[in-house]
């Protein structure tokens, strides 16, 4: 501070502080103002956002906040649409109606058979019918060889010894995968009987055996439509490890034996075994094959032994004087299960805890079993163990259930094939993030099991436990609720007019009845769910919500139309819940059988060991290279033939491939394979750098020609036996991989579209599945009158530039149109046939107003789109994800073009993936050997089955190999339909610049649909651009 007189200083200081204070005060004030201002803006914006979102998302309850303008807008559009609709409907319905409002409401055909389907003959109703009947303790055995009728089935009587040594005696019958077989038998005492059947799975397509059961030519109840007999699987060999110390999965082989089972519901939704009522006298029993062959020794009508309760069992023990054993702990490793119901239950690796037995910090040690793969009901595993002395033992399972939160997974425990007492027929494994030691006991004391010295077996079987009844009820409910949804939708449409009285209670009296009944059922269900899961959770909240909504519907039916959308969401949420709730995943490390006086081992390691484990696992992750699958072959040494293979799929696929190579390819050919799991995005760069593979799998349709044009692929016509290999596929499958006469890839996957339809709805509307496009045009108005739609392939998918739109291709090909000229040098989509096909196709969306985009699975389930045209693998999604419409749908080839001679042309396009051989492969002969092996029918079938067994039926392998396709576990009817469509598959050739065809065709379609341009002009404009690009590319490759 500069020197100055004191008073001056003081004066200045005072002044400054004053000002500063003053300024600070003002600043403070203005800051405060700004804050308030900002807060105000923020809250306003947030409220606006929230309110607009909630109006969209939440249920549109009352229309209170409607501004006057909106009201007028809405009502005027409503009026307009009302007139539009009333013009469109047939006049016949007007005679019965008096007012204008009811005039256009389509009459609902009262066909009761549909409704009956939802009040179908369930087992519960069946058994209730015979409530008072006796259960006579008589056994009637029918030897299978004495069958009385067979139709459409390949049934053979053979001596049991030709099938297996031991297990059965005398002659047995092998029943085929189609047709039926029937036995006649006499019953001496009327009453209810269990049925048991002794069977042996005959090698077929590796899926479970399924039969329909008829008694006296009649399906006794709906559940008898699907009786499942499991195949029996085992590890093919001991667990081995590769040269880097990682264990790899043993192959899963069928280890069939003669097995007697009491028949029960295939879905597992019914806990107890079936009982059938038989009157005195002669009866017939018939098994109708759905899939897979099996051998039968006998059938037996008998009474199943009742399972004792634990207290009774204990009383037995004490009366017999059984004492506690003093034996040491017996540890049964989960991965060593001797038999299992599914090949998916193979040993898996767990590295989440250092106390998992056996354990390695970084290597892939197969030390556990189960997991998500052990989630379906009725899957079981059997372990064998040796007991050193007679006595009472206690049992615990070291298991992990970190999958289904808020509920538990149940397992039925069987010792030596029998449930020892009622209490262990459903043991709950509760949700916990870590490993737990689950003791079989009542929560305080362990249950005691009497075991004699020697070999025993213990088995764990997935069972739904208490929740089974609930799910059964809900499944019926969903079917019925979907049905009534559709009925209402047919009257109101998806966007009902809020200001109109639809008088649903008059037009659809059944809806009130259904809502009343189902609401009551759901309230009860919700209570039971709460009870089972021990508290209110998501599930019960969801059920409550729907029950409340329906109760409200009954109270005020006028609100039904506007709340319909929300109702639909609630119902589909519940349908999904059935699927998730019936899944019971569980991982098992080991089972401990030990003396009651000894302690079980600790479930998990102390914290410091865990920390150490995590730290070292992290460290090792820098050292271990998991991208190599299996052994690394040394390709520098001498003349050993080694092939490098790249795959871009998941680890499951790679492991399956590796095990097939190790036990089949390398031993037979002496060629080693280095398999690497890579991101296929690097293939281009790797090839350019000369570090690429010899061959790569799963390449897209356009890729082979693109690479071949740039001299990166080897021409397969250099191999003499190429034609033999190509014979394995449809001719259509190879066309996209050819340039001139050269072939650059071998197909592996092939898919194409087919037509799926809801039989129940079409029957209800009295229309047949369309055969030709004319049929389609005819039924569209009928469907739309009922506010239903056709599910055509979407035109607004964000992926643009793929293959041309499937519908366009079908129109074009069915009318003998072509995309390219004969020598594939120009695009000829400017031909009159192409323009006609294009106009027809766009008309479908512009004139017939078919929806442009939709979630097909959901809408097919609710029935909003009873006809869907989509890839044939939609079948698998439906089979797995939509159990509530099982048996109500079917699929067939797509509609076609009627020819003068009465035949119908049904051409469709196709999607492919392929295997390619790189030009700089070191050993081309060896690589070709591998390609031949991989695309052979035997290997494709095996790969398909193994993939399906790992990932479930939704991942069924769409192989391009015709012979292999026939051997995959498709039900025989479905296989026929696919084969029929396959005959009509016609691919799009790939040429230089062909990516422009898909891209510009999509642009043209969108222009016409979204901007309403003239189809002809639009197409011609774009075709010119396509040809420009093709020219350019042809010049680039010196083809012009």
């Amino acid at each position, binding site marked *: 501070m500069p020197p100055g007189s004191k008073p001056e200083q003081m004066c200045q200081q005072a002044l400054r502080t004053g000002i*500063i204070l003053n300024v600070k005060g003002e600043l403070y004030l203005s800051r405060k103002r700004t804050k308030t201002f900002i807060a105000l803006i923020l809250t306003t914006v947030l409220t606006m956002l929230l309110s607009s979102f909630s109006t969209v998302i939440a249920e549109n309850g009352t229309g209170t906040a409607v501004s006057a303008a909106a009201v007028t807008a809405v009502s005027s559009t409503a009026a307009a649409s009302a007139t539009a609709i009333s013009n469109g409907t047939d006049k016949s319905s007007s005679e019965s109606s008096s007012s204008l409002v009811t005039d256009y409401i389509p009459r609902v055909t009262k066909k009761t058979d549909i409704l009956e389907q939802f009040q179908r003959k369930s087992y519960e109703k069946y058994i209730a019918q015979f409530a008072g009947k006796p259960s006579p303790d008589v056994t009637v055995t029918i030897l299978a060889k004495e069958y009385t009728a067979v139709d459409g089935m390949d049934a053979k009587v053979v001596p049991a010894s030709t099938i297996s040594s031991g297990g059965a005696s005398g002659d047995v019958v092998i029943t085929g995968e189609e047709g039926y077989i029937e036995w006649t038998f006499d019953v001496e005492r009327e009453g209810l009987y269990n049925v048991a059947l002794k069977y042996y799975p005959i090698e077929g397509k590796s899926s479970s055996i399924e039969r329909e059961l008829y008694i006296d030519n009649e399906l006794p109840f709906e559940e008898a439509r699907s009786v499942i007999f499991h195949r029996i699987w085992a590890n093919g060999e001991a667990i081995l490890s590769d040269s880097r110390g990682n264990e790899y999965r043993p192959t899963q082989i069928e280890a069939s034996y003669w097995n007697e089972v009491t028949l029960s519901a295939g879905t597992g939704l019914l806990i107890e075994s079936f009982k059938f009522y038989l009157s005195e006298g002669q009866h017939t029993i018939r098994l109708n094959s759905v899939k897979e062959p099996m051998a039968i020794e006998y059938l037996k009508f008998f009474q199943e032994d009742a399972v004792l309760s634990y207290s009774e069992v204990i009383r037995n023990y004490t009366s017999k004087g059984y004492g506690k054993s003093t034996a040491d702990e017996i540890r049964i490793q989960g991965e060593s299960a001797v038999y299992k119901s599914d090949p998916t239950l193979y040993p898996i690796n767990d590295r989440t805890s250092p106390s998992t037995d056996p354990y390695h910090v970084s290597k892939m040690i197969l030390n556990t079993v189960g997991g998500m793969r052990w989630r379906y009901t009725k899957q079981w595993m059997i372990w064998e163990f040796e007991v050193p002395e007679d006595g009472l033992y206690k049992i615990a399972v070291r298991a992990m259930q970190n999958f289904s939160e808020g509920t538990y997974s149940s397992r039925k425990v069987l010792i030596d094939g029998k449930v020892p007492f009622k209490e262990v027929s459903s043991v709950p494994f509760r949700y916990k993030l870590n490993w737990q030691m689950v003791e079989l006991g009542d929560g305080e004391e362990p249950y005691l099991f009497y075991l004699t010295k020697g070999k025993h077996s213990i088995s764990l079987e997935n069972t739904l436990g208490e929740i089974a009844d609930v799910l059964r009820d809900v499944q019926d409910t969903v079917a019925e609720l979907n049905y009534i949804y559709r009925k209402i939708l047919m009257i109101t449409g998806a966007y009902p007019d809020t200001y109109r009285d639809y008088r649903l209670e008059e037009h659809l009296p059944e809806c009130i009845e259904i809502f009343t009944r189902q609401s009551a059922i759901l309230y009860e269900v919700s209570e039971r769910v709460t009870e089972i899961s021990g508290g209110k959770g998501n599930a019960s909240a969801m059920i409550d919500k729907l029950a409340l909504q329906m109760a409200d519907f009954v109270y005020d039916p006028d609100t039904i139309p506007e709340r319909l959308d929300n109702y639909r969401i609630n119902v589909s949420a519940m349908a999904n819940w059935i699927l998730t709730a019936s899944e019971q995943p569980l991982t098992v490390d080991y089972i401990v059988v030990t003396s009651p006086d000894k302690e079980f081992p600790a479930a998990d390691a102390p914290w410091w060991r865990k920390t150490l484990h995590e730290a070292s696992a992290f460290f090792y992750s820098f050292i271990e290279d998991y991208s190599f699958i299996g052994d690394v072959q040394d390709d520098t040494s001498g003349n050993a033939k080694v092939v490098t293979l790249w795959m871009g799929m998941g680890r499951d696929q790679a492991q399956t491939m590796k095990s097939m190579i190790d036990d089949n390819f390398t031993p037979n050919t002496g060629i080693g394979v280095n398999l690497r799991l890579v991101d296929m995005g690097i293939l*281009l760069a790797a090839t350019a750098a000369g570090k690429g593979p010899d061959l790569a799998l799963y390449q897209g349709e356009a890729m082979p020609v693109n*690479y071949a044009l740039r001299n990166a692929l080897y021409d397969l016509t250099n191999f003499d036996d190429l034609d033999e290999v190509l014979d394995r596929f449809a001719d259509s499958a190879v066309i996209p991989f050819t340039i001139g006469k050269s072939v650059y890839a071998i197909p592996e996957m092939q898919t194409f579209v087919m037509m799926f339809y809801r039989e129940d709805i079409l029957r209800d509307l009295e229309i047949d599945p369309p055969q030709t496009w004319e049929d389609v045009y005819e039924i569209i108005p009928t469907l739309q009158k009922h506010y239903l739609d056709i599910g055509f392939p979407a035109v607004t998918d964000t992926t*643009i530039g793929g293959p041309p739109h499937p519908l366009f291709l079908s129109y074009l090909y069915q009318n003998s149109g072509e995309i390219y000229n004969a020598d594939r040098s120009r695009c000829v989509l400017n031909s009159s046939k192409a323009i006609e096909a294009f106009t027809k196709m766009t008309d479908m969306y512009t004139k017939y107003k078919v929806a442009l985009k939709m979630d097909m699975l959901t809408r097919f389930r609710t029935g909003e789109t009873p006809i869907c045209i989509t890839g044939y693998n939609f079948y698998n999604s439906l089979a797995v994800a939509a159990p509530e419409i099982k048996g109500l749908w079917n699929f067939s080839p797509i509609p076609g073009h009627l020819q003068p001679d009465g035949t119908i042309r049904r051409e469709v396009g196709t999607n492919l993936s392929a295997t390619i051989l790189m030009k700089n492969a070191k050993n081309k002969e060896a690589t070709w050997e591998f390609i031949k092996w991989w695309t052979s029918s035997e290997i494709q079938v095996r790969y398909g089955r193994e993939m399906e067994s790992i990932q479930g039926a939704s991942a069924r392998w769409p192989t391009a190999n015709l012979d292999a396709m026939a051997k995959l576990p498709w039900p025989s009817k479905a296989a026929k339909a696919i084969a029929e469509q396959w005959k009509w598959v016609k691919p799009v050739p790939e040429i230089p610049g062909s990516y422009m065809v898909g891209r510009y065709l999509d642009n043209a379609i969108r222009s016409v649909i979204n901007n309403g341009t003239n189809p002809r002009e639009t197409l011609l404009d774009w075709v010119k651009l396509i040809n420009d690009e093709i020219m350019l590319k042809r010049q680039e490759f010196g083809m012009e």
Partner: protein
Amino acid sequence: MLQIGIDVERKEIMQTAAQLGRPAKPRLKFSKRFRNKLAEMKEFRSSYVMISPFLILFTLFTILPVVLSIVLSFTYYNVLEFPRWTGWSNYRRLFVDDEVFMIAVKNTFVYAVITGPLSYILCLLFAWVVNELPGKLKAIMTFVFYAPSISNAFIIWTILFNGDMYGYANSFLLRWGAISDPIQWLSTEKYMMPIFIVVALWLSLGTAFLAMRAGFNTIDKQYFEAAAVDGIKNRWQELWYITLPMMAPHLMFSAVLQITGAFSAGAVGSALFGFPSTNYATHTIMNHLSDYSGIRYERGYAAAIATLLFIVMVGTNKGVQRLIRKVGA
């Protein structure tokens, strides 16, 4: 007074810099100069060692690829075969023959001109607004605004603008009777660019926003007090004369980020509208580049596009730097 204070500081820094550096010398022969340079490097070797890790990486992974790409732009290169020299033909084709490129340039400029400055202003505005909030709320709001840019949250826009009649926007409009058929928001040209811009703005509060937030935090309170004494009347003056000039480096950094971001936009567009978008309605230069390098395997041509884009970006950045120097002046 404040201005003077800063000037004094600048002078001081310059003086120190002058003392540290060598005094100007008369021009010498090249060999001599080279030797001098070496000697100089030797003297400051510790500094050179310290910047070397960055320098090596920067050269290897940024400078080298840029140079290579410029070289490649004069060749025909399809990745799988060795490049072939073609001279200026790629550029000729780019400017004369390629209609789609012109669309891409137009789109990129429309997009960059709107989103670039707007998102920059938004960043500044929100950074300022958030900075005014009290303690805890400040952190929370920073996260709320920053979060969209780190996640792939723009996917929610595809649900909002789904073309299905059950998509949020369609559902809403159908319900209120505004439309009678669902609109294909993401494939109808007139809606695409606006949606693209809105989504981009929503995503734009990214690193630039954070940098500015940091900038606001670094300013010492003393300056405001001093300025108050010197007669600053309101918050705007405070912002213009103190806050922004003090934040010059942050502003510059953010500007570079936003501009580069605006010109290299493409990924978000592809995720929303597909690649390439319908009728090229949101086709940007980046999209055009990946079309040629990924789908058509014409990397030489793609390199030419990249080179052009590079030049445009450098140019714009220079311009913007000039503008920013005027802040507070």
